């Protein structure tokens, strides 16, 4: 069985990355699941970005960064009400302990 990606590996992969998000947190288990799929040769669905801001696909983006197979990017539109919540993706990486 393949070893699961760790929080430290993800933080290392995000070091220096300038991608932004409006989301408050991401789930470590969700990222691990996407990495496992990529390792199995499956292609992730495209993510949506508005400039440098991820609109949909935070977990897929991080998984691709860690595993080395970045997802395709489609244009998305950020909700204007979220403009005040833009931050660097690497700053919000936390672990959802009970998301599964």
């Amino acid at each position, binding site marked *: 069985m393949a070893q699961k990606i760790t929080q430290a590996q993800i933080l290392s992969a995000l070091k220096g990355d300038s991608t932004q998000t409006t989301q408050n947190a991401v789930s470590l288990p969700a990222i691990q699941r996407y990495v496992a799929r990529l390792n199995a040769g499956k292609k992730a669905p495209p993510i949506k970005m508005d400039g440098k801001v991820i609109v949909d696909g935070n977990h897929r983006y991080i998984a691709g960064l860690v595993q080395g197979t970045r997802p395709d990017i489609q244009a998305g539109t950020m909700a204007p009400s979220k403009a005040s919540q833009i931050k660097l993706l690497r700053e919000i990486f936390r672990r959802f302990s009970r*998301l599964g």
Partner: protein
Amino acid sequence: MIIIHCQTGHDVKINSNTLENAMLDGLDLHRALLECFNLTGASLRKANLRSALMRQVILVKADLTASALMTADFRLADLRNCKFNQSTPIFADFCQANLQNADMAQADVGGAVFNYSNLKGAIMLCNRLEEASLEGAIFDNKTIWPENYDPERQGAIRF
């Protein structure tokens, strides 16, 4: 017919002229754009509302039992008498929302933000409430907290 657009690119078609009292149980509304929608009395049991944008949404007397609400945006929402039992609003944003008489029993609120919300009469018997932020939230004698939980120590204000 009402079409709910989602930032995932997924559209959800509802065969009705209103979302008030709508039956939306189990629907996939991941990243749904529901800002300012009126969903009074709607049933959203076990719905997937992860990262849904619900700023200023009206969910008075709505039923969100066991719904997935991770990182959902409920800022300034009207959530009076809303049922959140066994839901998962992990890292959800309830800033300035009106949760008067809402029932959050057994909801997982780890990382959720209730700053400046109205928690009067709310049932706050949530899981991981100690990991939530309650700065400036107001509550009253009818608000029900877990045993040994001190809301004022977390920044909430008795009103």
